[in-house]
């Protein structure tokens, strides 16, 4: 194969490939990208057999064909070249030649047919497809992924679940102590039972969506979900597990409601948490008329107390939380936003909402402090 491509096109594809290629040495071909050159464009593929990336780029084709190269090596080379056109050529010994001006590289490759086949997006007219604005989807993922577990022993919780409920698309994640949920009415048909995408897939999806605008498509195949966003196509294997039924843990009503400015509250939490026990970050919150008192104590470090103004008129009570679990969610919203906290008692789930993004909901279980 032989073609010319712009540095931008190539680099954009290789950047996405970086996150996907498998760095483990079990199957060397998985550390490579495959470059397929067609009649008038080129496609760059990368996969770790869980996620597959296909990125189409414009190319001035001299000769069709395919070549592979180590993804990291190629990325480092392309990145350090000057802007503008880059020539790519492969030889029969599977070397990839990269040329720009007086710079010339010959990279050892692998027989292209060894590159694993990638699932193709099923029929575009399939019923299991929905269209969504790239920015909206990215935000939905951002608002949920952080709450997913990283304990691989529980695969169902190690990702983000997509499912249809009450005519809405629910995107939800939980690690068993907290749950983050975004529900939106969307165009298209949604998956009925929950489909779970693993953390890595969601992370890569967010990378693809980053900076994009306009509609993208999610297609739900059997065991695979495809994201089609412009020139990029991502095939993601789903987690073979059932997401726990969670609607029962979302309190329909709570006894008390607190309204508080996100900025001052987050900052106070951050300060107080400095003196909370290091691993579990326990902080005590006391809700009182017009204010929240925050405190933390660590026998080895000392104690911290702080008061933050809040709109509260319920009964006075104290509850313990992992400060990280609070800050994780508060940091997703601007400082000038308002947070509504629905409280029951010190051992029931607490609900967090932000009026600016009414589709979002966060449920957090308290911590029992001695």
């Amino acid at each position, binding site marked *: 194969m032989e073609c010319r491509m712009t540095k931008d096109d190539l680099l954009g594809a290789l950047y996405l490939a970086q996150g996907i290629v498998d760095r483990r040495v079990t199957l060397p071909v998985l550390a490579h990208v495959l470059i397929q050159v067609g009649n008038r464009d080129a496609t760059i593929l990368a996969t770790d057999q869980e996620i597959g990336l296909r990125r189409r780029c414009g190319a001035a084709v001299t000769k069709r064909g395919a070549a592979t190269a180590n993804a990291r090596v190629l990325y480092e080379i392309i990145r350090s070249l000057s802007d503008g056109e880059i020539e790519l050529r492969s030889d029969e010994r599977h070397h990839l030649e990269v040329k720009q001006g007086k710079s010339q590289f010959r990279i050892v490759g692998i027989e292209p047919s060894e590159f694993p086949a990638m699932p193709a997006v099923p029929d575009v007219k399939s019923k299991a497809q929905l269209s969504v604005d790239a920015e909206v989807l990215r935000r939905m993922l951002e608002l949920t992924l952080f709450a997913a577990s*990283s*304990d691989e022993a529980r695969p169902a919780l190690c990702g983000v679940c997509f499912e249809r409920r009450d005519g809405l698309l629910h995107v939800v994640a939980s690690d068993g*102590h907290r749950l983050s949920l975004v529900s939106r009415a969307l165009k298209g048909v949604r998956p009925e039972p929950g489909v779970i995408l693993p953390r890595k897939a969601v992370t890569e999806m967010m990378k693809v969506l980053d900076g994009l605008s306009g509609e993208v498509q999610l297609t739900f195949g059997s065991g695979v979900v495809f994201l089609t966003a412009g020139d990029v196509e991502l095939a993601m294997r789903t987690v073979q597990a059932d997401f726990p039924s969670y609607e029962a843990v979302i309190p329909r009503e709570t006894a008390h409601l607190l309204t508080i400015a996100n900025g001052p509250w987050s900052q106070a939490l951050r300060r107080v948490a400095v003196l909370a026990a290091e*691993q*579990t970050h326990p902080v005590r919150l006391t809700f009182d008329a017009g204010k929240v008192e925050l405190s933390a104590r660590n026998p080895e470090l000392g104690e911290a107390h702080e008061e933050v103004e809040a709109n509260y008129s319920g009964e006075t009570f104290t509850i313990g939380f992992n400060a990280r679990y609070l800050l994780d969610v508060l940091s997703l919203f601007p400082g000038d936003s308002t947070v509504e906290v629905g409280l029951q008692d010190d051992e029931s789930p607490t609900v967090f909402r932000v009026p600016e993004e009414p589709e979002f909901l966060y449920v957090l279980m308290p911590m029992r402090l001695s």
Partner: protein
Amino acid sequence: MNEQAPLARKLEDRQEGLAPGERRVVVLPPEVADKIAAGEVVERPASVVKELVENALDAGAKNIRVELEEAGLGLIAVIDDGEGMSREDAVCAFQRHATSKVRTLADLERITTLGFRGEALASIAAVSTTTLCTRRREDLVGTRVVLEGGKLLEVSEIGGPPGTRVEVVGLFANVPARRKFLKAPATEMGQVSEQLTRMALAWPNVAFELRHGRRVLLHFPQTARFEERLAQVFGRDRAASFLDFEAEASVGRVRGYLSPSHFSLPSPRQIFTYVNHRYVRDKLVTHALLAGYSTLLMTGRYPLAVLFLELAPTEIDVNVHPAKLEVRFRRGGAVHELISRSVQERLRAQLPPLGSGLSEGDKPKLEFASLPQIEPLPLGPPESTQREGGAVPQWVLEVPWRSPSQPPSSATLAPPQARPSFAQLRVVGQVFEGYLVCEGRDQFVLVDQHAAHERVVFERLRSSYARGPLPRQQLLMGAVVPLDARAAARLVEYGEEAERLGFEVEAFGMDAVIVRAVPALLAHLDPAQLVRDLAEELVEVERPEGLARAAERVFARMACHTAVRVGQSLGVDEIRALLRAMDEIDFAAHCPHGRPAFLVWPRTEIERMFRRI
């Protein structure tokens, strides 16, 4: 010790004092009675050696030579340069319960000498032909006493050096039954040399020599420094790695030398424990020592340790066992606490200073130089200056026990409270997806990522538990955990204890529980797995009192599940976080199962391996 030994000879026959116990139904002929009694004290050549050497020590000897032929059956000779005996004493010494060391019943309550029962010589003489030659320094002529099968054959005058020489010929010749039960000569010789080593450890200011035929088996020259004796016995390198400590409580004092926790042996035979300079093999003392090592050693592995307890004579009863191997403590609990606590504290401080804490002057600290397969460095404490054979064994009073392995001028050594810094190590990389390769100042450090992380988690759990019930993170969705009925019942029964450990568990039918909360420290893990672990450990607990111990096992097991595995490749950030965490905890040296968490080679070791030095 000998300054406390009564100077009087073995004169008093204490038979009257014990008369009620001696009443006989049928009076045995004295030869039979003597042989029976002898059997209690004199089991084998090693016991003869023990009794005779103890007598020599009680007599203030500075040089003790033991000579054996035919593994002691031909000849056992013990030659000392102690104070010797007068003619009358020499004869009396062979009467049963003849002793110079105890006179009244009250004396028995405060025994400070090694021998006291007045049985040894009589017992030995009963089963052999025994010749005693002795001369006091002030006497012109000495005395020679010969007995055969307990009968006095000869008392005569003899010349010779000051001191006492006891020769035992034909041991058990007249007791074929006993002779039959002796083991192979090599085994019997092993016992003798072990026996002598035990005594030598407690008496560094006495020279010991053991010969078998023409071969010198042991030779421990006299030394003023206890560390020097350790070096003579265990070798210089091993001795240099010992961790020394000293502690005191109302019940008494304990001093000791411990092998660092990375070193272990498959049997407890290298544990030497002494009560008031008497070697004892006491369950309580050994248990306390091992409790001090606690989780630092794998099950079935033992340390090398030398422990000296000094208790007021009224605190102990040594008259429990004929061979005086056991003692009875008046306040056993306090003794146990003293030992286990001080051992634990010393081990906590054992970490070698890593990175910046270390400088050239620290070389004698060789805790990690004696790694398997690698020859330790030929370094050690400087040669001791031999002291003249003064009357008072000053090593007890003078030896700087606190820092024997450290040169006194070494100001560069980090004090035990200064934590070594793993965080300051330079991370070179990871090998075999399981071991972190790091560089400290003049040190090559290898960290087992799983063991290290396990220890980190374990210590976090343990220290949090020590401060109170573990904080519990509640679960959004109570998880149903199927268990066998016994485990489920046990979990519910111990609900309160489980809560202290950070769990909220409710019954769910007969053979399952619902878990509502888990320890916040382990909140990222599968609650079902945690509860299964907890249940398995609780089933083992027989009584609720045992829960404190169970807690430790629960934590160890959970830590193991939590920790990063070997086979998991770690990023630089993760490695850094792990090393930082290792700095925070108390015992970074081992994983809770007792495997080492890291190994350190000094630069000199590496250079030596490459024959650069």
